[in-house]
Every structure is written in structure tokens, then in C-alpha cells.
């Protein structure tokens, strides 16, 4: 791993009340690469993803221990501005969730709440974000149409465009293609591949082929523990642990 590290966790544990959902996770995620988090349902991979932009803070009774460093700053230390953090670390959700607003207003939402109201600048951001999300050509004449009128795959790319519009450095994706048909899925995967040039991407997926196709690094989680982490090629061809091999080859999970 000779890359620059973007995100680094040390002994990261997370508790829902009494129940421990993450057990001392230590991992270094490289910049401008795609890192896939895999593992059976309930293994903590989504929970881990949500610790990286502190979305878990929204849930009552959640306690976090350990550190998460992003660009060498511990995002769990006192005085961290969660709003600033979430601008820098964008998130794409499993279920595409465009606002019931127009396509334009969806993408412009982030810039607007950050105080950008100049029509020309907004137009530019909207177009650029939609282009980066590979959606511009399909909808450039329908910017005033409701975001909810788009197809499932388009909605998810709209959500990606909306996240890109606030100029994040990291993109967290929580099973972004799990609700999409194969064609829409391959479009999103292509997009992920292109986006890693400019962004650090962490993606949770249930789909082994997807992890193998899009990611450079893979982390395998099992019951709250990080079992194995390494280059995707190595994890999928010569996994170091039996559990990993069993999961990847479909013997459980």
C-alpha cells in the first residue's frame, strides 16, 4: 500500500446501548481509490461507513470509542464541526432519496444551504455535477422536472450529483446499486470507476462481483470485526483467512 492514506481508524468501537456493533476496527483507507466493505448482513459494515461522516450520531444511545482520522484530524475529537465534516465526506444511500423537488433544485440544494445564490454559479455547479454523475446528457432538457420522476438508476445518479455539488473529498456509498437493475447497476459501477480519479470512495456492497469489479481494496467484516483487509485482487484470489474464503465463495452469508 504505497498510497497516501485518507482515512485511518484506530481501535474504533461502536455500541448501540449495550450491544457492541464494531469491535476495535483499525484500518487505513487510501486516497483516490475505491475501498469495498463486504460481509454478511449485520456484520457492521454499514455502521462502520456511517462512523466516517458521523451519521451514527443521529441515532440515540450510540457510543463511539477510538479514533477516526481524516487527513490526520480525529473527527471524533471535541470541537469538530459535523456540518463541515459532512461537506467534506459525502454520502450516497442504499435507497435513492432525491428530495421531492426539481432535478435542478436537488443538485443546487447543497450549494444553496452553503450560501451560494448566484444563478450563474449555481447553473455551473449543477451542470458540472450532473456531468460528473454521467446524468447530464440524459436530462439536460428536463432540469425542472421532479427528481422523483426519474428512473431508479437515474435517481441514484442524481443523488450522486447532489453529493458532488458540495465538492466533497470522500464519497461514502451504502449499497448504492442494490435496488437497481443490472443495466443501471453497470452504469453506476462505471461511474464509480471514473469518480475515483477525483474522490476517495468507500463502498458497502453485498455483491461480490461488484466488489471485485469496482474496488481496489476490500475489507471483510464479520460480526463487528474486521477479519481481513487488503488489495481486492489478493482478497479475492488468495484470501488469508478461511472465513473470508468461505464468504467470498458463497459458502455462507
Amino acid at each position, binding site marked *: 500500500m504505497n498510497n497516501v492514506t485518507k482515512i485511518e481508524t484506530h481501535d474504533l468501537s461502536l455500541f448501540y446501548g449495550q450491544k457492541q456493533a464494531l469491535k476495535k476496527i483499525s484500518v487505513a483507507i487510501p486516497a483516490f481509490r475505491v475501498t469495498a466493505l463486504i460481509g454478511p448482513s449485520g456484520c457492521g459494515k454499514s455502521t462502520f461507513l456511517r462512523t466516517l*461522516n458521523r*451519521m451514527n450520531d*443521529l441515532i*440515540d444511545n450510540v457510543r463511539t470509542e477510538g479514533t477516526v482520522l481524516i487527513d490526520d484530524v480525529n473527527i471524533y475529537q471535541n470541537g469538530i464541526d459535523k*456540518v*463541515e*465534516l*459532512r*461537506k467534506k465526506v*459525502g*454520502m450516497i*444511500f442504499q*435507497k435513492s*432519496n*432525491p*428530495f*421531492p423537488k426539481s432535478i435542478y433544485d436537488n443538485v443546487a*440544494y*447543497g450549494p*444553496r*444551504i*452553503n450560501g451560494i445564490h448566484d444563478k450563474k454559479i449555481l447553473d455551473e455547479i449543477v451542470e458540472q455535477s450532473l456531468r460528473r454523475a454521467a446524468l447530464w446528457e440524459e436530462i439536460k432538457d428536463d432540469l425542472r422536472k421532479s427528481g422523483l420522476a426519474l428512473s431508479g438508476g437515474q435517481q441514484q445518479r442524481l*443523488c450522486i450529483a*447532489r*453529493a458532488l455539488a*458540495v465538492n466533497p473529498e470522500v464519497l461514502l456509498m451504502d449499497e448504492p446499486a442494490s435496488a437497481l437493475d443490472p443495466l443501471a447497476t453497470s452504469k453506476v459501477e462505471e461511474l464509480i470507476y471514473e469518480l475515483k480519479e477525483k474522490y476517495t470512495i468507500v463502498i458497502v456492497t453485498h455483491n461480490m462481483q461488484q466488489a471485485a469489479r469496482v474496488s481496489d481494496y476490500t475489507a471483510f467484516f464479520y460480526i463487528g470485526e474486521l477479519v481481513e483487509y487488503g488489495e481486492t485482487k489478493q482478497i479475492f484470489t488468495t484470501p488469508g483467512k478461511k472465513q473470508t474464503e468461505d464468504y467470498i465463495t458463497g459458502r455462507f452469508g
Partner: protein
Amino acid sequence: MRKKILGYVFILSTALSAFLVLAAIVVIIGKITAGGWDKLSLEFLTAAPKEGMTAGGIFPAIIGTVLLVSIMSLAGVPIGTITAIYLSEYADQGSILTKMIRFAVNTLAGVPAIVFGLFGLGFFIHFVGGGMDKIFSGNSELRWSQPNLLWASLTMALLTLPVVIVSVEEALRSIPVDYREASLALGATKFQTIVHVVLPNAYPGILTGAILAVGRGAGEVAPILFTGVAYYLPHLPSSLSDQFMQLGYHLYVMATQSSDVEATIGIQYATAFVLLAVTFLLNFSAIFIRYRIRARLR
């Protein structure tokens, strides 16, 4: 065999009870419509009562009712909405304070209307109004320490507050968590999320709450008895410190206080018809809006 008969008896009695409810509403509406139909006219809606309320119309009572519920809404809906936002978005659901507020809201909903009237008299008129008169005119002129439109409206706002709070809170809770998370994940603050995402999507629910409150307020008489309604006024209220006439109270006055009650019967029916029409219309529009929101959220 006995079991079977018991079953039939039970079915019959449930059907009979249901029929009774239906019959009651049909009789009420039918009798009122039949009794008042002849008197209903444009003149009835736009003229003042004449000849000891045995002739003329109910215009001042309609205007008084409209003013009452409008000022009531201006005061009650914002406070109710803000309370609902606090309860649903900010309050720690397990805390004692939140439980106390919820308990207060529920208790408020169960307080008899006449008690609100007495509270309005004691608090708004004597305490607030009396204080205002002391400060503004040194008690040389009794202006605010008398029953008037403002105090009646505020008393009514208090009465309808639980209706607003409950329906707005329901509307806020119906906004999917996905929208909130999407907004927060984009670096929006909680306040921005509420203002730009939650409230715009909840406004039909807020509207429903307001309409239900108005429907309730339009039909209540007890809270305004001591706080502002007048028996008869030759002119319309021109300021917040004026008294006013109101449909429900007007009905009561005609039925009990008129010098010639017999002669007012037709007008009474017609007044009841207008009162019913207004409250039904408001309730139906609230139901309709709610139905539309639910259909949209699905």
C-alpha cells in the same frame, strides 16, 4: 342452536347501533335544512338582524365568527407549529420535560371549554387587560380589561392548540428519515434541514391542523361567553378591543333571550344550517387534504 341465535342477536344489535348513529345525523341535518331552507337567501347572509332578531340576517355573526377564527389561527397555528417542531425534532423523547409537555398538551385537550372561558376571563381580561389599562391610561379608561375580540380569540387559540400540535407533529413525523439524512449528509445543519426539507413537505399537514382548529373554534361558544361575544351589536367590530357577535352564541340568544322566540324559529334553523355548513366544510377539506398527503407519501 342457542349459539346461533345469540350470534344473530349480536349482529342485529351492532347493526341497530350503527343505524342509530346514521339516523341521528340524518335527522339533525334533515330537520335543520327543512326548517331553515325558506329563510336562506343572499339577504339572510348579508343583512343584520332586525326587529328584535325576528327578521333580517346574520351578517354580523358571520363576520364575528370569521374574525374570531382568523385571529385565533394567527395566534394559535404558529405557536402550535413551533411547539410541534420542538416536540418532534428537538426534544429528547425520553426526558421528563418532554413527557411533561406531552402530558400538558393531552390535558389541555381534555379541559372543558367553559373552563377555558373562565381562564380567559381571569388571565387575559383581568390580569393582562387590567395591567394594560393601568399602564396605558392609569385606569382612567377601561379599554382592555373588558371582554373583546382579542381576548376571545386568544382564549380560543389556547383551546385549539392541542389540535394544531397533534396534527402538525403527525405531519412532521411522516416526513421520511431518508430526506433528513440526505440533507444532513450534504452538510446542512438541523435547522436548515427543518426549514428547507421538513417544513415544505409538512405544510399540507400544518394546513390540516389549522383547518381542524378553525373547524373546532367555529363551533365552540363556551370559551367566548365571558371573554368577548356580544348579545347584539348594531355595528361590526372595528378594533381588537371591540366585542363581536358569533353564530353559535347568536343561535343561543335567539332561542332563549328573544322577546318573541316563536318568530325566530325559522332564522334559528337557518343560522344552525350556516354554522353546520361552515364546520362541515372545514372538516371535510381537512380530511381531503390529509387524504391527498397520504396518497402522495405512498
